[in-house]
C-alpha cells in the first residue's frame, strides 16, 4: 500500500508576477507524514516561497506563474482553495505581530474554526486544546498587544492548530525570538511531532537547532533542492554550508577542524553531547588527559 505523503513536490517552478526571476526553479521535495523537516537556505533561496505554496496561498492569493506538481496529502494544491487546504496545512509567518489581528487571544484562536462554521461547543474545545498545547491556557482575554514576542508566536501557532491541520508550516519562526525562546520553540515543535504526530516543516537560516530537532534536513539554493538527508549527513560539512549562506552547527566546525588536523580522524558530530562523547573517548582526549 502506498503511504500518502504529506508533501510531494516535483519540478516546481514559480515566478512572482512582475518578476523576471524564478523564485522556485525546479524544486523537488518529499515529506513523509509525521516528519520534522527543516528547510535551510540563505535569504533568497526560495524558502518562504515554498512555505506559501504548501497551503495554496501560492497560487491562489499570490499571483505568478506556477509550473510543476505540488501535492499535499494527496491533493493538488492548485485544485483546492486556500480555505479547503487550511484544514490540512497550517501556516505560521515570521512576524508574530502582523498575523494576530483579533482583539483577544481567544478570538484569534477561534477565528479559523468560526470561519468554517464549526459548532460553538467544538470551537470552545479546540480553543482550550490549542491554548493548552502551546502553554497559553488562561490567556484567553489578553490582547495580543500586551504579549511578549514569544507569547505572540505561541498564539499564532495555536491559531493555526485550532484548524486541526495535519501539517504545520513555519517560515523562520524564531526570527523575533531571543536564543532561549528559539530553543523553547524548537522543543515545542518536536513535542508536537512526537506526541501528536504532526508533520512539521520549517524554513530557517541557522542550522544549530535544526540539527538537534529535525528528522530531515533539506538544503535549498537558488530555488531548488541541493540535497536532503539526515541532519548528520547534511550538516557535517561547514564549508559547504557557509558557501550556501547557512550558519553551520558549531560542532560540525569543530569536527571538521579536528579531521583536518588529525590525519586519519573521522569525527562526525553535530551536537554538543555527541562531540563531548566522541572527543572524550578518542585518542586526542586520552592524550590530553595524560599530558596534564
Amino acid at each position, binding site marked *: 500500500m502506498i503511504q500518502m505523503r504529506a508533501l510531494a513536490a516535483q519540478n516546481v517552478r514559480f515566478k512572482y508576477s512582475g518578476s523576471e526571476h524564478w523564485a522556485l526553479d525546479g524544486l523537488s521535495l518529499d515529506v513523509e507524514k509525521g516528519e520534522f523537516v527543516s528547510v535551510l537556505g540563505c535569504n533568497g533561496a526560495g524558502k518562504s516561497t515554498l512555505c*506559501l505554496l504548501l*497551503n495554496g*496561498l501560492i497560487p*491562489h*492569493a*499570490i499571483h505568478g506563474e506556477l509550473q510543476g506538481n505540488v501535492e499535499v496529502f494527496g491533493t493538488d494544491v492548485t485544485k483546492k*482553495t*486556500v*480555505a*479547503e487546504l*487550511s*484544514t490540512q496545512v*497550517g*501556516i505560521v*509567518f515570521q*512576524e508574530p*505581530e*502582523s*498575523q494576530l*489581528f*483579533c*482583539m*483577544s487571544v*481567544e*478570538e484569534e484562536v*477561534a*477565528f*479559523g*474554526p*468560526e*470561519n*468554517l*462554521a*464549526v*459548532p*460553538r461547543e467544538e*470551537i*470552545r474545545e479546540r*480553543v482550550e486544546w490549542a491554548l493548552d498545547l502551546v502553554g497559553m491556557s488562561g490567556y484567553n482575554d489578553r*490582547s*495580543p*498587544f500586551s504579549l511578549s514576542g514569544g507569547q505572540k508566536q505561541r498564539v499564532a501557532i495555536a*491559531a*493555526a492548530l485550532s*484548524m486541526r491541520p495535519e501539517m504545520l508550516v513555519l517560515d523562520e519562526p524564531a526570527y523575533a525570538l531571543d536564543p532561549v525562546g528559539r530553543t523553547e520553540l524548537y522543543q515545542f515543535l518536536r513535542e508536537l511531532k512526537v506526541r501528536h504526530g504532526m508533520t512539521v516543516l520549517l524554513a530557517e537560516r541557522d542550522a544549530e537547532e535544526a540539527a538537534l530537532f529535525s528528522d530531515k534536513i533539506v538544503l535549498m539554493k537558488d530555488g531548488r533542492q541541493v540535497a536532503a538527508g539526515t541532519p548528520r549527513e547534511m550538516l557535517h560539512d561547514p564549508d559547504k554550508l557557509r558557501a550556501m549562506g547557512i550558519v553551520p552547527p558549531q560542532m560540525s566546525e569543530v569536527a571538521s577542524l579536528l579531521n583536518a588536523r588529525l590525519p586519519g580522524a573521522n569525527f562526525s558530530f553535530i551536537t554538543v553531547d555527541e562531540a563531548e562523547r566522541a572527543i572524550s573517548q578518542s585518542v586526542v582526549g586520552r592524550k590530553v588527559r595524560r599530558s596534564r
Partner: protein
Amino acid sequence: MTGFIDLYTEADTFLHRMDPRVKIVAVLLVTILGLVLSSLYSLLVLLAFIFVMLFLARATFSRTVFALKFVIRFMVLIILLWPIFDPSGTPVLASLGPVKITEPAIWRGVTSAARVGCLATVWYILMFTTSQRDLVRALVKLGLRFDFGLALAISLRFLPTLSATIDSIKDAQRARGLELDKGGLLKRARNYVAVLVPTIVSALRTADTLSLALQSRAYGARADRTYLRDLRMRSADIAALVLLVAIFVVPTIAKYLFAAPL
C-alpha cells in the same frame, strides 16, 4: 493617541454587564433626547441622571474630568462666547457698540453648554463601560456587515501597535538629527515626511501579511460562520431597554404633542 479610543476600564457594575447593544441604543436615544429638550431645567435633570449613571459605573471624578477636558473647555467657551454673539432678548446687562450682553442669551449659552455636557458624558460612559470587542460585536449584531465589523476591529486592534511603530520611527529619525518640533510650518511638514513614509510602508507590509494570515484561516470560506461568544439579552437588559425607551418617549411626546415646556 489610543487613549481616546480605549477608555474601557474593567469593573463589575450593572452598566458593564449590560448588553452592549442596549448601551448603544441608550446612548443614541439620550443623544437625540439631548437635542430634543430645549429647556435648561430639563437638560439639567438629564445631566443629573447621566451623572448618576457615571457614579454607578464607578467612574472616578478625576478620570472623567481628565477624559473630558476638551469638552469641558469647549463648554466654558460656549458659556463665555454665546452672549457675545447673541444680542437678542431682554434685559440687557451690558453693551459695547454692536455687542449686547442680555440675560436670556446667557441662559441660552448655559443651556447649549449643558447639552454638550450631556452628550459627551453619555458617550464617555459607553466607552468606559464597554470594551472595544463588545462594541464591535454589538454593531455587527445590530446589522453591520461582518467584514466591516472585522475591518473595524482590526483597525482598533492595531492602533496601539501603530502608535508604538510611529514612536519608534520618530526615535530613529531623531537619532539622525531630525528635529520635529523646530522650524516653520512648511519645514515641519517636510520633516514629517521622514516619519510618514516609513509608517505607511510599515502599515502596508503588515496589511500584506495580515491578508495572507486571514486567508490561511479560511476567512470568507462560508457565508454562515459561527461565533464562539455570542451576545444574549438577559431579562435585565430587556427591562433596561424598555425603561430607556420610556425615558425617551415620554418627554418627547410631552413636548411635541402636548407642548410641554421641556
